[in-house]
């Protein structure tokens, strides 16, 4: 099974020169559209399988025509085999407040209904399958009604969307809830996983604990990735999830190599 897995990274435009000539990377996820003056974009597009992983919109609300058109255009530009979005609700309905960072919805029946309805509508407008990524919570909100894994399972069963399993997100939730990561992972609907994200974590001064960082994954995270992949029978790709102007080429290339080695 692992022979069929693609192993890749995110396209970081400041590393365009290195990525345009790199070996050992099967795909690049695109978090932003290519810059109009990016000299490396033509070579990148020619060389790699590209995965659409942009901000399309938060599916707590229906996507408008402008956003759907943008998603369709980017998916076509990249030739993306699937289209990714996140289980996120990061700006208020009136647009007055915006966190500019992935933030999970309340795990309630109302939000499940919203996400199922709006993801189903988006899926119907795309020419590629839709995959949805789990988002970590640093704190629990008392109003949530369902455990996250159950909420996700019901979402995937209702929509037929694929699961983009972000492993560091699962690991962080386990860490901040004093749970065993493998036991916590086992509760997620792994049979729906199409792609996995693997990343490094570092101590954050504000959180006073670990969080995602543009760093190499630890040996523990790599072992966790190998464990997870062995339980995701439909997985097609593993992506080193680092997209930051401070990411160095050494970290990117070594991380991809070590992920491939761990699998």
């Amino acid at each position, binding site marked *: 099974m692992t022979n069929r897995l693609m192993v890749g990274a995110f396209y970081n435009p400041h590393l365009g020169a290195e990525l345009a000539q790199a070996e050992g990377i099967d795909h690049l996820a695109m978090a932003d559209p290519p810059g109009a003056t990016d000299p490396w974009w033509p070579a990148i597009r020619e060389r790699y399988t590209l995965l659409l992983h942009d901000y399309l919109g938060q599916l707590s609300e229906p996507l408008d025509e402008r956003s759907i058109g943008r998603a369709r255009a980017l998916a076509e530009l990249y030739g993306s085999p699937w289209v990714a979005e996140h289980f996120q609700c990061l700006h208020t309905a009136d647009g007055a407040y915006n966190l500019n960072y992935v*933030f999970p919805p309340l795990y309630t029946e109302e939000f499940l209904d919203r996400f199922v309805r709006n993801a189903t509508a988006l899926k119907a407008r795309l020419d590629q399958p839709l995959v949805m990524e789990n988002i970590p919570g640093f704190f*629990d909100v008392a109003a949530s009604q369902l455990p996250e894994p159950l909420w996700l399972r019901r979402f995937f069963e209702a929509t037929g969307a694929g699961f983009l399993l972000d492993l560091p997100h699962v690991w962080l939730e386990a860490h901040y809830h004093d749970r065993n990561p493998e036991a916590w992972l086992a509760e997620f609907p792994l049979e729906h996983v199409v792609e996995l994200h693997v990343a490094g974590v570092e101590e954050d001064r504000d959180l006073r604990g670990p969080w995602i960082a543009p760093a190499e994954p630890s040996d523990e995270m790599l072992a966790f990735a190998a464990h997870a992949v062995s339980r995701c029978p439909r997985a097609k790709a593993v992506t080193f999830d680092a997209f930051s102007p401070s990411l160095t080429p050494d970290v990117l290339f070594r991380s991809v190599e070590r992920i491939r080695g761990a699998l």
Partner: protein
Amino acid sequence: MNHPSSDRALQDDVIRALADAPYRASPRWRRRNLADPYRVERYARFLARHFYFERIVQFFKYSRALARITGRPPEAVCKGDAFDLLLPSVVLGSQETAQAVARLVVAHVGAARAPIPYLADLLRYEEAMMLVEAGPRIWRDDTPTEGAPSRARHAPEKVEGTALLELDFDLPAVLPKLLQPWTEVPQAAARPTQLLVARSPHGRVAVARSDAGIAAVVQLADGKRTLEQLAAGAGLPVETLEATLQGLVELGAVRFPTGS
């Protein structure tokens, strides 16, 4: 924001608490007892640092490119004590917080003793970009495209936040060069240059060269003056004014109120 009556409204309240430090400290939020206040505070501070790091990297990208000369990467302010002092008053995305953070960056980079004659102009330009971007935005297009009111019936008005910059150097000519590989600092011609910085309702910031006519139109567009009065005030023929207004609307600098 009213007392939450649905899960969506409740989610909005959590988002506001994370984004708005004074609200987070208020009895109204604390009484709700929705989440561990220690963790909410920690996460809100993490988000604030992330939010302004991203904006500084985006809007001060030319100063970043010059950091090997100035020795002062603009994003370094996010890790400084002065930024920590702002945290109790931060409201993510507000004009006031954007102004406060931009001031930190301008003071930090501007203190460099570097042989870059246009550095002060550059910092004013980058600060203007960051300020214009701040403020609420439209996330979804709910406005029907048909049946829009006739422009002829409404007076154009300057969009709040639109900025006119008077510079001593021709920055637009040098900016692209700063982002390309260079060994000697690209120089800008000393030439009075006027720029207009504006934001679309969806948050896209755009810059265009301006001139005396364009500047007059922007300054006079108060939502009350008719096209004829604007044309007379700006010293432009009505046909030229209409073309100028079209460009300004596309830039996001001027809008026609719907009148509804």
